[in-house]
């Protein structure tokens, strides 16, 4: 019989699953950050203090938790702050961040891109342009390669 009519079920087998030295990702469960405080941010937005709201939103990012609810909540808060910014205020806000802050902002921007709502994409694109001017291609690469996603 020709070889190609024999069973090819072995191709669906993942040989590395049976290897006892399999690579198991060890995340070190560092301090669980719970994400920014929603009520405090709401207050600041109502008062019009966007810069402080922005900085607080970017503090305590929930990068170490595996709980999706915490991450969703943090994302919603950050997006609310980003969309309530005026276009002219975006650039000074980005300039006030340090290198890791810009990386974190990029991570949130890309997560926001994933789930577009109303006209959030337009403002997110403006944020992206300003953050890219500061962070460069490296910050985008770090969004793609990050193991601790926000």
């Amino acid at each position: 019989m020709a070889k190609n009519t024999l069973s090819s079920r072995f191709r669906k087998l993942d040989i590395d699953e049976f290897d006892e030295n399999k690579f198991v990702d060890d995340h070190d469960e560092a301090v669980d950050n719970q994400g920014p405080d929603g009520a405090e941010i709401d207050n600041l937005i109502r008062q019009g203090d966007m810069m402080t709201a922005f900085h607080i939103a970017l503090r305590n990012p929930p990068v170490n938790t595996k709980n999706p609810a915490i991450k969703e909540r943090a994302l919603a808060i950050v997006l609310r702050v980003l969309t309530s910014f005026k276009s002219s205020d975006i650039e000074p806000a980005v300039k006030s961040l340090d290198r890791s802050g810009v990386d974190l902002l990029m991570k949130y921007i890309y997560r926001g891109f994933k789930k577009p709502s109303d006209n959030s994409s337009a403002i997110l694109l403006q944020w992206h342009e300003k953050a890219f001017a500061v962070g460069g291609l490296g910050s985008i690469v770090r969004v793609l390669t990050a193991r601790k996603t926000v």
Partner: protein
Amino acid sequence: MSYHSFLLEPISCHSWNKDRTQIALCPNNHDVHIYKKDGTKWTKIHELKEHNGQVTGIDWAPESNRIVTCGTDRNAYVWSLKGEVWKPTLVILRINRAARCVSWSPKENKFAVGSGSRLISICYFEQENDWWVCKHIKKPIRSTVLSLDWHPNNVLLAAGSCDFKCRVFSAYIKEVEEKPGPTVWGSKMPFGEVLFESGPSGVGNRLAWTSHDSTVAIAEGGKTSTISSLSSETLPLLCVSFITENSLVAAGHDCYPVLFVYDGTKGSVTFGGKLDVPKQTSQRGISARERFQNLDRRATSSETTEQGLESLHKNSISQISVLEGGKSKCSTFCTTGMDGGMVTWDVKSLESALKDLKIV
């Protein structure tokens, strides 16, 4: 700075001989070609055909004039020049995945091969059996070993791998050498993202590596080992090498080498400058038609019509090797890349050409 285009295929790996007149490289296939320099031209003098898979690593031992090659066919060969012909000797690595990188130790009595089977093979020649034997370093490596570099004391080996860690191992083989003296490195240091190339400095106290998340980091061994890293704005770097005690040159997907300066007292890595031929900007006015064309094609009506890259290399640079001066006082280094070209860079002329560049 001279650019030489060897072929249209990417150069997978390369290595120079002792007096830098010959280069062995793999043109992205199963062979190794050796080119000899004739003035400014390069002629192919040898073709080493033995591997059954792509050759992923080549190292030419300067003193003993032996070449070791490793490939995706899970083998390594040690080539010795007999008369006018290179004769291969098979080395059984006992790995079940491809070999990724190979490096002779400083004394050239052993070499290390990093592979996809999550281990490093340290191979040495056993006199009684007239055969190359290998020992494995398995724990605690969890994924492919991508890059290797030896410490000058011939015992310590730094390995970077896909499990996000860079480690320093002791590759002491008692059959071959005497007991080593104490060094500043204590144990392994886990870090960062997926790694690419690591290169210890001349004296061997510092280890530098670049990783896939566009960062470059330097670790200094000692009682309190410190790590300093720099997140760069460029695309990820693929290879790095020290050129003096405090400066390193790295290159990668951005197609030009970059200088980084390490300040030991402050423990910081800073971007030193971009090492490339300065741009010849032509000052012609741009016509209205071109402006609209640019707007159509690229959404900006900017002045520069950059049809191609401005750098010497036209594609990612995959390997840097020091040509002259060693790692502590390099005066020339060479880069090869995916565009099939090789560029030799002269440090002195770079320093004078790019005025604010300082190589400490």
